[in-house]
């Protein structure tokens, strides 16, 4: 077991974890934050994307111990305290940018830094930003629509 101190969605957790425990499993199994999904466990689908110190990271490719001393942000942090949707979440809903919902948390976390940069986005920007996030349901275009529109709001 290895001690790890990680701040997740603003709360610092001091834990002892096996060195091989993946960050995704720490979030899901140890902290109960099951919004982060695992789709491939090898970094190819993007479903497990979270923010580590503000940057999108595949939590299935990072060990929990590598998150020691760092700040992790997950999908659970996006909506307001009383449940009101983050503007990006609301935009995805409005544009029908999700169907089964399984890729959605990773998609949201991949897009969040781009959107929070405050720049108006072009369609190609968004396509590139989510090119590593697989969705089998939507065909992506409604996600692109939602993000472009939200970036210009």
């Amino acid at each position, binding site marked *: 077991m290895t001690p790890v101190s990680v701040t997740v969605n603003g709360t610092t957790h001091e834990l002892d974890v*096996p060195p*091989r*425990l993946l960050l995704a499993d720490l979030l*899901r*199994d140890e902290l109960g*934050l*099951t*919004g*982060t*999904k*695992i*789709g*491939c*466990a*090898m970094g*190819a*689908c993007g*479903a497990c994307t979270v923010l580590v110190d503000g940057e999108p990271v595949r939590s299935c490719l990072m060990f929990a111990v590598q998150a020691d001393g760092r700040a992790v942000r*997950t*999908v*659970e942090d*996006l*909506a307001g305290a009383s*449940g009101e*949707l983050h503007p990006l*979440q609301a935009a*995805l*809903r*409005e544009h*029908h940018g*999700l*169907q*089964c*919902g*399984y*890729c*959605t*948390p990773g998609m*949201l976390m991949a897009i969040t830094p781009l959107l929070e940069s405050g720049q108006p986005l072009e369609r190609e920007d*968004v*396509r*590139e930003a*989510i*090119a*590593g*996030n*697989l*969705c*089998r*349901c*939507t*065909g*992506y*275009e*409604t*996600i*692109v629509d939602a993000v472009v529109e939200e970036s210009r709001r």
Partner: protein
Amino acid sequence: MTDWQAHAERRWAGKRLQRLEDPGMLTGATRYVTDVRLPRMLELAFVRSHAPSARIVSVDLKPARAVPGVRAVLGSADVADVQPTVDIVHLDGALKTPRFTLPGDRVRYVGEPVAAVLADDRYAAEDGADAVIVELEPLGEDEPIHDDIPGGRYFHQAAAHGDVDAAFRQARHVVRRRLHAQRVVTAPLETCGIVADYDTATGELTCYLSTQQPHLARAGLAEAVGLPVSDIRIICPAMGGGFGGKEVILPEYLCAAVAAIRLRRPVRWVEDRSEALTAGAHGKEAEAELEAALDDDGRILAMRSRFVSDTGAYSSGIGAYVEFMVGAFTVPGLYDLGAYAYDTGGVVSHKAPISPFRGVGMTTSQTLREVLLDDAARALGTDRMELRRRNMVADGPWRTVLGEEYEPGSWRTAFERALELIDYDAFLVRQAAARGEGRLLGIGVSPFVEAAGIGSAGGAGGLPGGSHDNATVAIDLSGHITVALPTFSHGQGHRTTAAQLVADMFGVAPEDVRVIDGDTARTPFGMGTFGSRSAVFIAGTVDRAGELVRDKLLRVGEILLEAAREDLELVDGTVGVRGVPSRRIPLASVAGAAHFAPHVRAELGDPTLTATAFFDPPRPTHSNGTIAATVEVDPGTGGVAIDRIVVVEDCGTMVNPMIVEGQIRGGVAQGVGLALLERYVYDESGQPQTTTLAEYLLPRATDMPRIEIEHIETPSENGTGGIKGMAEGPASATPAALACAVLDAIAPHGASIEELPLRPETIAAALASR
């Protein structure tokens, strides 16, 4: 029988209502099977065959038992009392191969499970699986895959409708084409999974399961593990996609269930992606040929088809039958063939068993037919669209050469509108100019029809596709309405769609309707969600059950308001006198009176405000449309850039156009994958080569063009409220549009291709060979 469109007002149905299921999914609150954690739960991992065909010499489980965290290990002998799975499909002459949960004598494909390890967490379970020592003796190629399937062909059917041979003898032109439709994987983002929990006090087995068919899964599990159906409860919390791949009882599920019963502890197995790609829900592989006899005017006199599906190591599952049967039956499409003969069947191989996959069979038949029609037009020197016009049936009802009765559709209207939208004539001018510059532009057009809501009468075509459903509608003491459905939404937004329909029936808001699915303890029996059926069956069952409850509410209203039935309405959560807002009673009070007011109860006789009703459409519903695509092929690399994809879709009356468009977009994206990217590869020795998502290419955001959509609404004659159902047509028709477009682009070079996907290297090689 009533029509929901006739209810007071159509306030909600037809609207682009934002989905009720979205907030949970967007915030990460929605639970999937993989998110279910129970106290004392063990995780399961499998030891799998690394050989495509081998005799099992020995499986030494002992080393696994010594691994820290491992609690139990199951081998073949431990699950010998589990019944082999043989599905419910009955076809005369089919040779069914029973599939044992953990085979003890031999393995037939790479990835076949041979032992199961249960541990405190998945990490330890995989350690345990790695420690199991499996000794396999490879078997030679001459060893039959199954002793009782000589030659490997487990099913064959051939039939001729009309005098096909005479038509071919008289024909002035005969065109032929073969197509190898590749093996693919269904690849929902959520893989398969189960959490099995046995209650030793009640003897009930609860399984949280990722399945499209909760009630059929319950029956299948019950039979395999030897429990009465009523002792099993299937709960599907939420499901991250299915696409046909979650219609199967996997041996892994049976292991989990048996282990939970034996060990008295909850057991979870979540398929990882490499398991899913190696041994999970594959789909679609077929070798097909089609030939057409035509006269000088380009009229089709007859067609002949041949389909052989390689469905993998076992012929027990439904996936082993639907691909080649639906393929052969859907060749006529929207054309008057005159006469048609097919020869179809399936063979086993040392590959993972295939399951149904969206657009089952249709993808191959549609692609082959449309590409062949383009060939015919080129052979006759006729415009490709003009050749289609000469053979396409007129809008309206149609009886195919196979005897299938299409309800009225906008076959030609959708086709012509798609040509207008893509501006076919202008494209030909641009294409000719581009060719002068050495650029390869192409256009492909794919008109489709899709049998969606198939009831008992629809099974007559040869596949036992008969189906029917029930739904329950109830009103509680708070005046809220609950709808319980045996279908199971896994991305299709059924909760929203059903709530829209029910809201209109009861004069309430969709948010006041709770829709329950995915739980056999809380929903009535039905077939589940597959084959574009759910909209038709939800509308049909909910309308009938809702009408029975409405009738009760209005009866109470008559008593309480002392008004005649024809003067009453359900509006804004009340029963009221039409046009008199002061004389309205909230539904909660109506429900309360039915249960607790003696005079009301006495008049009603039975105060139950719950009804379950059955629906089986008299004939299948048929949606239709046309996909048109333009592409540019890079003459150097063979790369295909999609320029435009236009979809004209007619699924009858739409309940939520936004959801319909979502199904179109997602279907087209899967079609892009099938046409250009996706390909599951085994090497010559039977070893899988595409076992990660780095090797198996799914469409990404950067692969997708914008999709332009236009709707036509030709109300159904067979589906309640004019609803036809949809979701597979665009998926199965897109590869044809893209294949026609690519082949059009390279046709001037005399090049052609007879396999999917149309990969850059294949295209470049075809161009270079000329």
